[in-house]
């Protein structure tokens, strides 16, 4: 387990790279919306994992969708990683969390990588390139850098690219983040928990797995050339639920094999791995009390019900402590089962 001082340094490294950190708020994924719903496991889920929420009874959930950027400025239409943090409220009063983002792979392997990334990928001014520079890129068969969004004056893109150019393990995560786009709805994106977990079946079999949420309404992004709107995602979700349009996700669990990248969040698993449908999440309402519905909930990727364990992924280990530090800093509820 990462010690408290390292966890604190991790959070400080993140905060140091924010344009305007906001006391009392999450340093990143600041903007979000809490949603209520229920999860029902599939009829096969219990044969793979003994955790309570896979037994088949409807389980109430609290979900917080979020934009990845830090700060209180809302830019739904900017290309950005989105978050989907889910808390399953178990019948015995405890809870288990599953934290996922639209980024399928991470860009660093461990804490040391992350500190170097934070040093290199600093906020830098971001301006429109001159047309001559773009012409030069086009002549080299490169895609010119995108124009800044309205009000976008800085970002970490150049630094992240420099880091990826030095480290091949980072290239997939950085590339995917660069082209991730903006979804038309929070419920029209796939979310990936990235890290490997170990689930225990009723016969004691332990399997390394990765979880993903697949949207039943399908994946759809805003066209990259469309005008960017700052605020639409929460309103879209509220309207969708009010009109009873699809707002469901399937929970997919991919089972890894022994020599797959079990502890390296920068590496995907092959598409040939067995894939289990573990259940369906149905969202029902956006509560008016957003404090209780999402803002005050302190999700943690290592809050896991019996039957699910964290793997030895060093980033997953580090997130346990980093999330707790962040929670303390903003006065969220402490890490405990409820």
């Amino acid at each position: 387990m990462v010690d408290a001082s390292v966890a604190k340094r991790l959070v400080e490294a993140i905060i140091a790279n924010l344009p305007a950190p906001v006391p009392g708020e999450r340093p990143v994924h600041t903007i979000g919306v809490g949603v209520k719903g229920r999860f029902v496991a599939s009829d096969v889920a219990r044969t793979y994992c003994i955790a309570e929420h896979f037994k088949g009874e409807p389980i109430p959930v609290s979900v917080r969708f979020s934009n990845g950027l830090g700060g209180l400025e809302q830019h739904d239409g900017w290309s950005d990683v989105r978050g989907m943090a889910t808390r399953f409220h178990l019948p015995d009063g405890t809870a288990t969390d599953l934290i996922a983002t639209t980024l399928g792979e991470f860009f660093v392997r461990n804490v040391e990588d992350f500190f170097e990334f934070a040093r290199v990928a600093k906020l830098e001014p971001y301006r429109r390139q001159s047309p001559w520079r773009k012409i030069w890129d086009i002549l080299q068969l490169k895609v010119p850098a995108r124009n800044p969004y309205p009000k976008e004056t800085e970002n970490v893109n150049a630094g992240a690219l420099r880091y990826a150019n030095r480290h091949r393990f980072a290239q997939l995560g950085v590339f995917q983040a660069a082209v991730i786009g903006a979804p038309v709805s929070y419920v029209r994106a796939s979310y990936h928990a990235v890290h490997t977990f170990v689930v225990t079946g009723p016969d004691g079999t332990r399997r390394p797995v990765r979880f993903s949420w697949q949207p039943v309404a399908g994946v759809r992004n805003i066209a990259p050339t469309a005008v960017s709107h700052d605020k639409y995602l929460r309103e879209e979700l509220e309207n969708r639920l009010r009109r009873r349009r699809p707002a469901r996700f399937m929970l997919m669990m991919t089972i890894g094999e022994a020599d797959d990248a079990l502890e390296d969040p920068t590496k995907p698993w092959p598409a040939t791995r067995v894939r289990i449908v573990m259940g369906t999440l149905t969202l029902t309402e956006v509560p008016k009390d957003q404090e209780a519905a999402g803002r005050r909930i302190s999700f943690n990727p290592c809050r896991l019900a019996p039957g699910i364990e964290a793997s030895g992924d060093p980033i997953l280990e580090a997130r346990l402590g980093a999330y707790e530090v962040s929670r303390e800093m903003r006065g969220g509820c402490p890490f405990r089962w409820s």
Partner: protein
Amino acid sequence: MAADEGWFDRFVDAVPRHRLFKHVASWTLVPFWARWTPVKPLPGGPRPAMQPGDNIQCMMNLIMPLKIKSPIGRAEAALAIAQNKDAIYAGLNNVGTVHFARFVIVGDNICMFSVYDGDFTNYIRDFIATIGEVFNEVVKLVEGGEKVTPCEKNVEAFIQWVHERDLYQVPDTATDFLRDQEALSGDKAASPVNDDLTLLPRRLVLQLRANANVSLGSGYRAYPGFSVAQVRKQLGIGW
């Protein structure tokens, strides 16, 4: 429209999407960069299997140019398949590791697309053993086919011949594609390196010039990780 955006900015932004630019670039920029920064054709077929699961539901995408490039040539190829349908089906049943297989005519090419379990070399050997005669009938209609027929007597040469006509499978991730190019050049460095990710579009264009036909990604599977034997057993339909 941003306040600092002039007509020239908008014009340049639109250039890469314009059809005329794409045509002109194909005739000028692409050949230029192909000479200046050449790429080698990437080999076809599935990647080397590292795990048991990598040997299940492998994809084969064979593209074989016909000798007679006309409706008559295509009709001959279609007849060669149609007249041997029973032999093909019996052979595939006997091989026992084929999930799906079909012959397709695209332009003046006879193509075979299949999904199979196990190693590529063993897969072709099994085919030669069970439907070698059918292969001979088809391969004699294909450019270069006479060198490897009868396939039962030229097994190794035939396996290599098939491998050369199996499409390169572009990986599921863009960066794995870069790794394939690097591996072909003997570059297996990890960190630190001196790459330029902004060159990815050019490298992709040049690669698709070297490999004009490719299979995009590893393909969707409704039930990945299960062999023919397992599926048939689970469904209770015998194997």
